[in-house]
Every structure is written in C-alpha cells, then in structure tokens.
C-alpha cells in the first residue's frame, strides 16, 4: 500500500482531525522529518513536532501535559539504541518510557495513543510511516478525553 493510500482522509469519515504531538530528537528523527518533507513523503499536517536535544530530554510531564492540553496521541522519536548523539541518552529513554507507557495504560490510556519509536536521520520513510500509523490508529479510536483538561478549549 502506498503511503498516499494509507493516509486517512479524516474529512470522509468524520470531521475529527486528530492532533498528534511528536517529540523529535534534534539529531535523528527531527532530521528524519525534514527528509520526509524534502522527499515529498506525505505525513499528516496535524502532527505537531517539538524538537528536543535528545529523546531523553522528554520529561514524562511533557507527555501528560500534551494529553491535558489537547493531544489525541503522543509520539516520542529518538535515535536507534546505540546511535545516541550523547552515547547513552536513548537507553534511558527506553527504560523510562517503557515504564511510563505501561503506567499510562494501567490508568486506562489506550496503548495506541502513546508511542515511542527510533527513527534515524536517514529514515524519512520510516518517519512518515510511523506518523501515519499513529494518526490512523488514533483516528480509529476517536478524540481523546482521558487525561484531557476539561477546561482546555481547542
């Protein structure tokens, strides 16, 4: 299936446009996003990218805050284990968010709404695929209400 086809056309099914917040490591996935862009791979516009110096800079609070203030899904993207610009940052990311993801699921969040993945600077394709998949799955689930602050308005 081509990426174009895989991309969901949210307008058809409903007018729900999922909002995905993606924390991308400056040294790999952020560049991967760039590559996806320059190679004209489609990835959805409602993925909001936040650049971080390393995936291990992502504080679990950031993830929660994103869900509180409107995110329907959150993705953290870092360098592949072994490739960290700072040698070992992503190994910490891996442990931290393995536990965090499980904890979030334990309090009731759907697993599809929170993802971590490894995307190198050369993997423009993978970047688009990961984001599209995240979007597609979140779209299926519908708008997120869990952890969302009721006072927040789009």
């Amino acid at each position: 299936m081509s990426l174009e086809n895989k991309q969901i056309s949210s307008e058809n099914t409903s007018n729900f446009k999922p909002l995905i917040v993606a924390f991308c490591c400056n040294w790999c996935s952020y560049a991967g996003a760039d590559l996806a862009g320059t190679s004209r791979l489609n990835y959805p516009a409602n993925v909001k990218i936040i650049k971080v110096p390393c995936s291990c800079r992502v504080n679990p609070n950031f993830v929660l805050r994103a869900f509180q203030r409107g995110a329907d899904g959150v993705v953290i993207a870092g360098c592949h284990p072994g490739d960290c610009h700072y040698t070992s940052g992503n190994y910490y990311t891996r442990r931290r968010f393995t536990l965090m993801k499980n904890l979030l699921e334990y309090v009731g969040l759907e697993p599809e709404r929170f993802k971590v993945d490894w995307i190198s600077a050369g993997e423009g394709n993978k970047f688009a695929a990961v984001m599209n998949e995240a979007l597609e799955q979140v779209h299926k689930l519908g708008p997120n209400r869990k952890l969302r602050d009721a006072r927040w308005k789009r």
Partner: protein
Amino acid sequence: MEKIANKVRETARLALANGEVNKILGWKKGDFWYDSYPAFITEEEGTASLIWDSFCVANLSKYLIEQLKEDIKVGVFLKGCDARAFNQLLKDNRVDRDKVVIYGLPCPGMIDPEKVKKAGLAKGLLDVQKSEDEVVFITKEGEQKFSAREFAYDKCLTCQYPNPVVYDELLAEEVERNNTTEYFYQDVEEIEKMSPDERFAYWVEQFSKCIRCNACRNVCPACSCEKCIFDNSKANVAGKAKVDSEEQFFHIVRAYHVAGRCVDCGECSRVCPVGIPLAKLNRKIIKDITEFYGEHNAGVNPSLDAPLETFKLEDIDPFETRAKGGK
C-alpha cells in the same frame, strides 16, 4: 513487646547518658490506644516515656533529613520498612550514615486502627495487646481475642522485610514471618485484567477522591526532593484545581517519580485521608521493573543502582516497530 519496650527505653537512656547520641527518635503514647506518635528526646529523663507497641507505625527515618541539618548525632529506632526507607534516603544522599545510630526493631506487624473500627471493636477500647499472632482487645467489660492477621495493616500482610536491613544494634531477635509473595501483585493483576476504559473509570473514581493534601508525598521516604515540582509555582504544574486532569497528573507523576526507589513501605496508602489505594500504582511499577529488568528491592542494598539510574544494552525494547534502515 513490653520486654523489648524496656530495652528501647534502656538503650535510649544509655545512648544519651554516655553521649553516644544527642537526640533520640522514638515513639510515645498519646491519649488513645492507637495513638503512638513520634517523639524527639534530648534529655535522659525523657526516655522513660518511650514505647514500642503495635501502633508504632510511623516511620522515623525521614525526620533525619531535617534533624541532621543541625550538627548532631541522632539515634533512631527503625522497623523493617523504616530501615529500607533509611537506605533509600542514604542512596539519595539525603542523610549521613555517620551521624546516625540505628537501633533495629524486628517487626511483628502493626495493627490498623481503621480495621479495628470497622469491626466495631473501637468503642470503649482501653488497650490493645499483641502477642505472636494473637491480638487482645481490652475494654471495661473484659477481653476479646482475635487472630492478629485480621487487624494487621495491608502493607504488613505482604511485608517481605520485617527485619531491619540496616542497623547498628538489633534490639530483639529476628522475627520469622512467612508472608508469601503470592498475593503481592494480586491487586495489580486485577486492574490489568480490565479493559482500558474500565481501568480509566476505576482510577478516575479513585483520583477524584483526592483532596491534594500531599500527605502521601510528605510521608514518602522516596519523595525527598528539596523542592517538589508540585511546590514549585514556577514549574506551572502545581494546579490545585479540583479537576480530573490535575488529579491524574498528580498521581501519575507521584507514582512515576518514585519508580525504582519506592521501598514499598505502604505509608502513602496508609496516610491518605480519603483511602486512595496508592500502593496499587507503586506496585504496578515494581511489577514491571521486576519483569523487565529483574527484581529490585529498593532500600535493601543501597549499593545497587536504581533501575532508572542505569540501563543495559540488551534491555528489552518494546518500541522498535520496523527493522532499522531504509531511507
């Protein structure tokens, strides 16, 4: 326990008399049968009021952070769970081992006054006495005997370390308590079995009881940050509004911040004035750590790295979705 209580008093008295320590942290008895409360004693005479009974549940080790700000030597009585808490404080560089003398108290398990109340036995109760595995309730009308397990704190029923893991002097023989680990994760597993929506509904209901009093945090030996993010108005996370999302935020972060450092003392659940089962969050993390990174009993051996302080190259990787490569 009375014999050991005598030893507690004597040990404290001697320690102050011969200048081994400048201050003693122990427990005293208040107005009610359940009222055993922390005592801070600097004079020899004061040691006569020290006690050791089935209600000495308050953990004294966290007080050391504050007490050791003065340049003094402190003698402290610690039970099993308290000793693990002490080790965790040590590990987190919050106390100085050389300034503390630890008197270890092998712990027969503490009695939960709430369970006594619920059983309708609290009325007119004058005293509660506990032997090996029996508890005797004494009222004006007479005595009633029960199995001690019935009235033990939940945390004591699953306690794996009733004997202090660190001490300078042990005041009694080690106790043998064969609490099986069988039920350790029972509560967690029950929740894991639910669907995401059921789990969410369960926790929303629990969290919505929270009054944000911070008792769970303040009592916790793993929560010893100089400035908690929830006290830092500049961190912009200290929202105190009574809304679901703030409560969820607080609880997820609290549990996560002690991940790998929680000594499973159960104090958070015990002190929560509204009865939120916080241990079910901590235990979930302990369970995952055990499963993914191997058993780690925080506070048992302070020379080991906490699971989130370290990593292994071959750690499990639940995230890799596609093989590496491509463009």
